[in-house]
């Protein structure tokens, strides 16, 4: 039954109330950090800004996917179904940026 099925893939741990709230807290903190960074012109001008912002974005992305979307706790199949396409999407995006950055000389 659907109950059995629900059990079949929830014989893993569930994040608890507390854990969900921690995730929410971290998401808020990191976002606040990002926005704060945006308003520091010295930091924005430095070469560290973009990498820092991107890392923060990736962390937020990862914790939502792993905890809220349960990917850390669920059957491996879902991990494959998501990370494969995500990898291809990310590579394509990066390829585009480089391809269009090319300007022929002269």
């Amino acid at each position: 039954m659907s109950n059995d099925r629900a059990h079949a893939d929830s014989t893993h741990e569930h994040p608890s109330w507390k854990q969900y709230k921690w995730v929410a807290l971290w998401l808020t903190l990191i976002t606040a950090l990002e926005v704060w960074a945006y308003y520091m012109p010295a930091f924005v001008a430095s070469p560290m800004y973009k990498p820092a912002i991107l890392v923060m974005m990736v962390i937020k992305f990862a914790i939502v996917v792993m905890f809220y979307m349960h990917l850390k706790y669920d059957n491996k199949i879902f991990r494959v179904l998501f990370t494969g396409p995500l990898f291809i999407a990310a590579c394509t995006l990066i390829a585009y940026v480089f391809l269009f950055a090319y300007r022929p000389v002269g």
Partner: protein
Amino acid sequence: MIVANAAAVASGAHEAHEHTHYTTTSLDNRKIAIWAFIGSECMLFASLISTYLVYKGRSVVGPFPHEAWTSPAGQLFKPILNIPVTSASTFVLLMSSLFMVLALAAVENKGKPGYEGLQGSSKFWLLATALAGATFLGFQAYEFTSFVHEGLTIRTNLFGTSFFTLTGFHGTHVAVGVLWLMTLLFIDIRRGLGPADAIIVDICALYWHFVDVVWIAIFTLVYLIK
């Protein structure tokens, strides 16, 4: 997917699941389908975001996202993106994901100790999620209309074209999510949602979180990087 929520939705997950359906993995078909769908959406949003990034800085005329611009006619345009307002809407959307998680937990654990009252009310949390989503849409609507007033439409320049398309697609996804949530809320009010319905709430939740995650990417790449 929404499609296969079918019988579970209307018939209260009773009729259609009288008999056991054999599955190779013991997972629900719909959950596999929604993850495949989410994978597919990664490519859609990657294409939209790539387009935005590729066209960044190539607009021939303003207004521009992060810098001021004086038109040939002498009109002054300030940088058009409003970071404080968008930070607020981002926060709202992030919170909506929390509410969604709590809604699912309430449905899965209905009746169990620790889930009484508001904390365990799936109706409350579903409503909260939908309202947060609607608030986000409100912010988007405000942003779009104020941009138009300030002289940026989808036709004005490359920035307008790629920005409105990208955020418009995202907003449409949010809107579909809000309608989905309202439908679940409606069912909850009519016949109640219990552990047997966890799967259909889970599917909606996965969609909702994904829409949130896409916004995380958009907020960083569009608003925070100059």
